C-alpha cells in the first residue's frame, strides 16, 4: 500500500496583476517524512510557490494537495496540516514570544492550556524560554528566526515549510536550528526547505527540486544529482612548492600562492595516486578541502545552463 504524498503540486500557475508570470505550470511530489530542498535563484518562484501552499498567494491555475487535501478547495483543512516559517519576520514585535506562540495556537483552535504547554516546550527546545516574557523586538535576529520556528510548531504540523529560515543567522545558531529541524523530521514531520546556503541543503535534504523562471529545471534525489557532478576541485595547503608544477595525468594543478594549490580532477580519480605523485615531486600536503560546495557547483551549472539554452533559443 502506498501512502498519500505529503505534497502534490499539479500544474500550478501564477501570473501577478502586473503581468509577471511567476509560476509556469509546475508539478512536483514530496513524499511523507521527506526532507525536501526547494532551491532556485532570487525571483525564481520559490516564495510564490510557498505563498500558494500557505494560502497567502492566490494561484492562477492548477492545484496543490497537502496529504491529499486540496489547498484551493479545502483551505482550512489543508492549513491545519501546514506550519510555515516565512522569509520575513512577521510577528507583532511588541508582543512577548510566549504570547506570540500561544496566540498562534489559538488561531488553529488549540485551547489555551494546551497552547501554553506547547509554547513552553518549543521555546525551551529552541533555547528561547528565558526570553519568553520579553518584548519580541528586543530579541536578536537569530532569536527572532528561532521564534518563528517555535511558532510554526504550535499546531504540530505534518508538513513544515521553511522559507530561507537561516538568512543572516550566525553559524552556531544555524547549526542549532538544523539540529532541531532534523529532530522533528526524524520524528515524522515532512520538511520543505528553501535556502541560499547550499551546503545546508546538501547535508540535510534527501530530495531536491530546482526552480528557475517559474519552471522546475531539476527534480531528483540529492544523491543522484550529486552523482552527475563529474569533476571536483580541491584546495591543497602545502609546505613547499617547486618552481615548476609537475604534470600529472587526469589532474590539472594550479598554483594559488606559495603554500596553496588547486587540483581539478575527475571524481573517479583516486586521491592516493595524487598524493603519491605530489610526494614524489617534493610537495607535502598538510590539509585539503573542496573548493566549492558540490551542490553549489551543480546549482550554478544548472541555472546557467538553463539561461544559456534560453538565450540560444531566442
Amino acid at each position: 500500500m502506498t501512502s498519500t504524498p505529503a505534497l502534490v503540486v499539479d500544474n500550478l500557475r501564477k501570473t501577478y496583476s502586473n503581468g509577471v508570470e511567476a509560476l509556469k505550470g509546475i508539478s512536483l511530489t514530496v513524499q511523507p517524512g521527506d526532507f525536501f530542498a526547494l532551491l532556485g535563484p532570487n525571483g525564481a518562484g520559490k516564495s510564490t510557490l510557498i505563498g500558494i501552499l500557505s494560502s497567502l498567494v492566490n494561484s492562477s491555475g492548477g492545484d496543490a494537495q497537502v496529504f491529499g487535501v486540496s489547498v484551493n478547495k479545502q483551505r482550512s483543512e489543508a492549513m491545519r496540516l501546514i506550519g510555515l516559517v516565512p522569509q520575513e519576520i512577521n510577528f507583532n514585535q511588541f508582543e512577548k514570544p510566549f504570547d506570540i506562540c500561544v496566540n498562534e495556537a489559538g488561531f488553529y483552535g488549540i485551547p489555551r492550556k494546551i497552547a501554553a504547554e506547547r509554547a513552553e516546550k518549543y521555546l525551551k527546545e529552541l533555547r528561547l524560554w528565558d526570553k519568553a516574557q520579553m518584548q519580541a523586538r528586543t530579541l536578536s535576529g537569530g532569536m527572532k528566526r528561532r521564534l518563528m520556528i517555535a511558532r510554526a510548531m504550535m499546531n504540530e504540523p505534518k508538513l513544515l515549510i521553511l522559507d530561507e529560515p537561516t538568512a543572516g543567522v550566525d553559524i552556531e545558531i544555524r547549526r542549532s536550528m538544523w539540529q532541531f529541524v532534523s529532530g522533528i523530521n526524524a520524528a515524522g514531520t515532512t520538511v520543505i526547505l528553501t535556502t541560499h546556503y547550499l551546503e545546508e541543503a546538501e547535508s540535510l535534504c534527501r530530495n531536491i527540486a530546482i526552480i528557475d523562471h517559474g519552471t522546475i529545471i531539476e527534480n531528483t534525489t540529492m544523491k543522484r544529482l550529486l552523482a552527475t557532478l563529474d569533476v571536483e576541485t580541491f584546495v591543497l595547503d602545502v609546505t613547499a612548492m617547486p618552481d615548476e608544477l609537475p604534470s600529472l595525468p587526469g589532474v590539472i594543478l594550479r598554483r594559488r600562492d606559495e603554500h596553496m594549490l588547486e587540483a581539478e580532477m575527475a571524481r573517479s580519480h583516486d586521491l592516493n595516486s595524487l598524493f603519491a605523485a605530489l610526494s614524489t615531486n617534493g610537495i607535502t600536503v598538510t590539509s585539503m578541502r573542496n573548493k566549492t560546495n558540490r551542490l553549489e557547483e551543480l546549482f550554478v551549472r544548472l541555472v546557467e545552463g538553463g539561461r544559456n539554452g534560453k538565450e540560444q533559443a531566442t
Partner: protein
Amino acid sequence: MSNTAANLVALNTIVRREIVRIVRIWTQTLIPPAITMTLYFVIFGKLIGSRIGTIQGGFSYMQYIVPGLVMMSVINNCYANISSSFFGAKFSRAVEEMLVSPMPNWVILLGYVTGAVARGLVVGAMVLGIALLFTSLHVAHPFITFLSVLLGATIFSLAGFVNAVYAKKFDDIALVPTFILTPLTYLGGVFYSVKMLSEPWQAISHANPILYMVNAFRFGVLGISDVDVGVAFVVMLGFVAGLSIVALQLLKRGVGLRS
C-alpha cells in the same frame, strides 16, 4: 475538536489579543477621549450651555449634548481602534499569522470588530461617567440605549476595518476620520437638533447615517429624537449588514492581504 469549538477558540484569541493591546496602550486608547470629552462638557456644556438654557423637551443644553458626545466618542474610538490595529497587523505582516491559519474569514472580522466595540463601549461608559459629574441623567429606555450604542459601535468598527483593508500607508487610515468621519459627526446632530435647520439642510442631514445613531441613542437616554426610532434602527441594521458583506468579500478576495 469540532470546527465550531476551534472557531470559538480562535475568536477568543483575537478578542483577547485586542483587549490586551487596548489595555497595554491605555494612554493612547482610553485617556485621550476622556480628556477631550471633559473639555467638551466644560466648554460647550457648562460655559456656553448655561447661556443657552433648555433646548428641546425641557432638557438643559448640557443634558442634550451628553448622548451625542457619548456616541461620538464611541464611533471615533471604534473606528480608530480597528483601523490602527488591523492596519498595524498588515504593516508588520503579523496579519499573515491569521491568514495562513485555518480560521475562516468571519472569525477574523468578528474578532477585530468585537475588540473595537469593546473599546468603544468602555470609552462610552467613561464619557457617560464624566458627564454625570456635570449633570444628572435618567435613562429613559435602557434597552434602546444599549442596542443603539452597540449598533453604532459595530457600524464604525466595520467601516474602520474596510478602511484598514484598503489602506496602503498610515496616512490612509487618517484620511477618512479627518475628511469624512469628523464632519459627519459634527453635522449629525451631536450639538444641535436638526429641526433647528432650514430646508434643504434639514433634508440633507437625513442622508447622514450618524444622525440616526445619535438620535436613536438620544431617544434611549432622554426619550427625544429628531428621527423616527424605528427608521433609525432599520438604517443602522442596513449599514451593519452592508458593511459586513463588503468586509467579508474583501477578505475572501484577499484585497490588500493576499497577492
